[in-house]
């Protein structure tokens, strides 16, 4: 009756499903996890010493100035929290640069990807603005650019790059990326630079050092001695931000 036999049709469908299953195993931009990476150069981490934070928000201000963000977008946000005994404390929270980022997994166009140094980046020239990543992020670290960024002098009409997303593209999603535009040149991230309490450290897991701009510490020893913990570690996201409590904070969130 028809030209194509039932067996042929079903066979064809099977091949198609197979092709989908195979490509399903290989996301296009999963750079950091890609097959054998010869000795990683760096793996950036941040250490946040909550014993020192006084909630002044200089980090937030410096970040917003560097990336020309609107005031409501706090890529590093200082939460004012209450402990179990009623005491107040502060918890600065940047993007966790997860080892296993949920935001990356849900992005339909691979606008979110990870670079070789463990930083989760957003390509704002590709992002379609579906906000699935905001829904997926357990740390609420992502910000939707619903408004234009504050105007600033941009005489050469610079377009954002994933490493330095300035100016923010309207209708896309932005987030902290540990100022890789600075760290790549041996400078500190804007928030670390701005922290007058020396509570923020930028570090590297590979060379095992961290610095807050004044003192440099042996990272593993520093974390061990101070009982550092990671936020929502039970989610298996592998956050690259370590917290040091001890100023009356609860050790669990």
């Amino acid at each position, binding site marked *: 009756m028809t030209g194509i036999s039932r067996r042929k049709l079903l066979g064809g469908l099977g091949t198609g499903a197979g092709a989908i299953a195979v490509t399903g195993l290989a996301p296009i931009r999963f750079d950091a996890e890609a097959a054998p990476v010869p000795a990683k150069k760096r793996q950036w981490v941040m250490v946040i010493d909550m014993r020192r934070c006084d909630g002044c928000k200089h980090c937030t201000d410096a970040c917003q100035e560097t990336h020309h963000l609107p005031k409501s977008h706090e890529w590093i946000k200082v939460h004012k929290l209450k402990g179990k005994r009623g005491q107040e404390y502060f918890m600065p929270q940047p993007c966790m640069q997860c080892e296993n980022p949920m935001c990356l997994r849900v*992005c339909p166009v691979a606008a979110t990807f990870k670079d070789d140094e463990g930083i989760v980046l957003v390509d704002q020239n590709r992002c379609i*603005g579906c906000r699935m990543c905001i829904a997926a992020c357990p740390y609420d670290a992502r910000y939707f650019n619903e408004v234009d960024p504050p105007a600033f002098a941009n005489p050469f009409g610079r377009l954002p790059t994933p490493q330095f997303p300035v100016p923010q593209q309207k209708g896309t999603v932005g987030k902290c990326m540990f100022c890789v535009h600075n760290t790549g040149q041996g400078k500190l991230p804007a928030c670390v630079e701005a922290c007058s309490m020396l509570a923020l450290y930028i570090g590297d897991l590979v060379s095992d050092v961290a610095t807050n701009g004044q003192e440099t510490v042996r990272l593993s020893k520093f974390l061990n001695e101070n009982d550092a913990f990671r936020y929502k570690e039970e989610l298996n996201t592998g956050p690259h931000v370590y917290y040091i409590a001890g100023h009356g904070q609860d050790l669990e969130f």
Partner: protein
Amino acid sequence: MEARKHDRYVQQAMANIGKVGLRWWLIATVLAACVAAGIYAYIYQVQNGHSVTGVSHTIFWGFYIVNFVFFIGISYGGAITSAILRLTNAKWRAPITRIAEGTAVVTLAVGAVSVIVDVARPDRLLNLFLYAQPGSPITWDWIAINTYLVGSVIFFYLPLIPDLALCRDTYPNAGGLRGWAYRVLSLGWRGSPDQERALLRGIGIMAVLIIPLAITVHSVLAWLFAVTVREGWHTTIFAPLFVLGAMLSGVATVILVIAAFRKAYGLQEFIAERHFRYLSYLLLAFDAGYIYFMASEYITEGYVQAVVPGAMLQSLFIGTFAPVFWTFALGGLVLPLVLVALPGRHVMARACVASALIVGGMWLKRFLIVLLPGSSGALLPWELYQPSWVELAITTASLAAIPLGLMILFFFFPVMSVHEMDEVEGATEPARPALTPAFAGGGDD
């Protein structure tokens, strides 16, 4: 006698093809004005960005996603009603299948548009194809929805072929564009036994296929939420809950659409009280099932009294969202259940009131599903969502687009399947292809 009834239903089914009255134009104009206002609002939104909506960096999804889930959900009603009735070979289905299948196509199209409206960079929609990520629930979603859309159109089109032939033979201006379209679309249908058999087989296959297809779509839609770690979304019951919610709101919508077209197109002789009674049974089963699923969800979460689901349930039952929740639970689930479960008179009126309550209630439920987990972050004091006029205008337009779409659909195609009416009225001998299972009217004679 029989011949006269045949003439009557042919006449009623074809009455609005190409020649409509003043009332049709009046209603169509009002609805079209609503749609036009929505299109204007969308253009305004594209020009000014999502800052003109209520969504922000804290409330990331709003009315558009609520509407998206709602419309995709109600599209299931048409598919399931028609598919179930075809597979069980229920004879009474004949006058209502066309309306049910048409409703599925129109609501699905509106739902697909709703989610495109939500995308903040519609200029980059092509990226979904260029850089498609197989691991993203959004990719699963657009593949599933597009497949389902194609399936629904085929499911609408196949039973329409004999009626298109009827239009081809009776449409006065056969030489015009429309006459040409009927000629092409009817694929040279003559009603020969071979053609009848092929058609029945095709419809049987589609009726079987459309059910897993629709379940897939609604499950994928649920996973869009459930694969995140947000409290209230990250639950295993979400996919079945979405499927059942879709069937419930969908059948309710079908009842409303049938009631409207029955009255407006004068189909009282063919669509009788028993149609509403039978559809009410479906409504009753789905409504009771939905209450059971919901109770199961809240009891397992609420009994433990963990911190985060506890706070969410508190906000739902006695907090900020309590008025919405109780309106939905009592007005949109319990009251309709009572209305259709009680025996007695006014079956049709009760079915319609219950359906309207369910449709409204299920919209509220989708509102809670989308907004509640987004509003209960562990550390951030989430803002309460305020929809803007743009979102309200686009929502109104989406609602108006459904009756308008159906009116336009039945301006071109017969509102009842004349071919199927012929079968149940015995005007033609139904073909019985051997490949169709016995319960679908096939099998050996």
